[in-house]
């Protein structure tokens, strides 16, 4: 049990316990820790955005390396600051419009290929064979088709469609069950991570 002497470790441990105090009751210590987190995160973001993006990417090429082609992105970027002037704050729509248009324009086609074409192609049945693989492919074939029917809203779910969508729900529930099981592991491992910090780095109980 050799307790750490590093002041920074103590700060981290106290802040960890401040957040955990929320479990007992929402209290000022928790509120302070939460607002500190938001503040530190924003301050951290400003630095990373400046040192890794704004400075090496726009300021330095334009003002130091005199690469005049970066004037256009610089003008659009400056328009972001129009949010500070209430009368002209609508100018932020120019950089946003430019980004939204360009990003969506270049994303549609590769997205269509990978999200629709590749997934559809993999659902097609292989040659018939008495094998586990074919059985699994067949179950995936049925599952995908019935789940698509479940999320089909243009026809009334009557007769065969109703039956197929019931099968679809079974697949959905097994799928959500798998996610549920994994998510339990996820949530608990986050707590394990913090307890390991407290027990090992702070209190030195475990090696």
């Amino acid at each position, binding site marked *: 049990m050799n307790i750490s002497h590093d002041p920074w470790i103590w700060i981290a441990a106290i802040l*960890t316990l401040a957040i955990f105090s929320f479990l007992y009751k929402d209290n000022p210590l928790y509120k302070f820790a939460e607002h500190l987190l938001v*503040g530190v995160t924003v301050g*951290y*973001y400003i630095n990373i955005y400046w040192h890794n993006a704004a400075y090496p990417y726009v300021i330095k090429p334009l003002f130091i390396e005199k690469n005049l082609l970066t004037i256009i992105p610089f003008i659009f970027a400056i328009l972001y600051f129009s949010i500070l002037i209430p009368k002209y704050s609508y100018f932020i729509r120019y950089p946003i419009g430019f980004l939204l*248009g*360009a990003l969506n324009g270049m994303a549609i*086609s590769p997205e269509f290929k990978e999200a629709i074409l590749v997934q559809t192609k993999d659902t097609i049945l292989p040659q018939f064979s008495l094998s586990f693989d074919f059985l699994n492919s067949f179950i995936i074939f*049925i599952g995908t088709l019935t789940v698509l029917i479940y999320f089909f809203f243009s026809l009334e779910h009557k007769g065969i469609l109703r039956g197929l969508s019931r099968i679809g729900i079974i*697949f959905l529930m097994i799928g959500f069950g798998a996610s549920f*099981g994994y998510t339990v592991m996820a949530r608990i491992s986050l707590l394990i991570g913090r307890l390991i910090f407290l027990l090992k780095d702070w209190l030195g109980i475990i090696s």
Partner: protein
Amino acid sequence: MLQKQVPMFICFLMGLLLFFQFYIPASWSQNFYNTILRWILGISSFAIVLGVVSLIRHHLRKIRKKEDLPYSITLIFSIFATTLIGFIGGIKSGTLFDKIFNYIQIPLQSSMFAILAFYMASAAYRAFRARNVEATLLLLSAFVVMIGVIGIGDLIHPFVPSFAQWILDVPNLAAKRGIAIGVGLGIIATSIKIILGIERNWLGR
């Protein structure tokens, strides 16, 4: 005109150009594409301005109205303090800025999400009910995966982990593929509507 039509036209024009660029491999099209990529990175380097300004404005208003004063002051102070420390001391490993990240941001952020394990445990006890066929099926599938994933599953019978893996590889895969196709179509539909000016939410910002 300047408020709505021009930004929407810029959005429409860029959307069209970049959509067709994907299908034109000629060198001038490649150069245009490369230039736009670099412009996007230049512009989005300043996108943080919006978030920071609205956050600071929100909390300054709260300070003026004396609503939970100490917390908003802590927030504003820690924004400027961390920003200055980063600009003065630099952002390399070992700097004060790096220490603030490792010993203030990491513990706060990871503890914030570690709380969820507690809510998971109490919800498991008090809320997760086999209230209908669907929920029962969900809980059974969850139990198999939970036992299959851990070492104990292996000890009970080697079939357990492989059955859990089968559930992930086949029925779960089919369900998530159906959802992924639906979500994929939804994302693409939204992109198309933004470019064509049908979806105008971003103007309201």
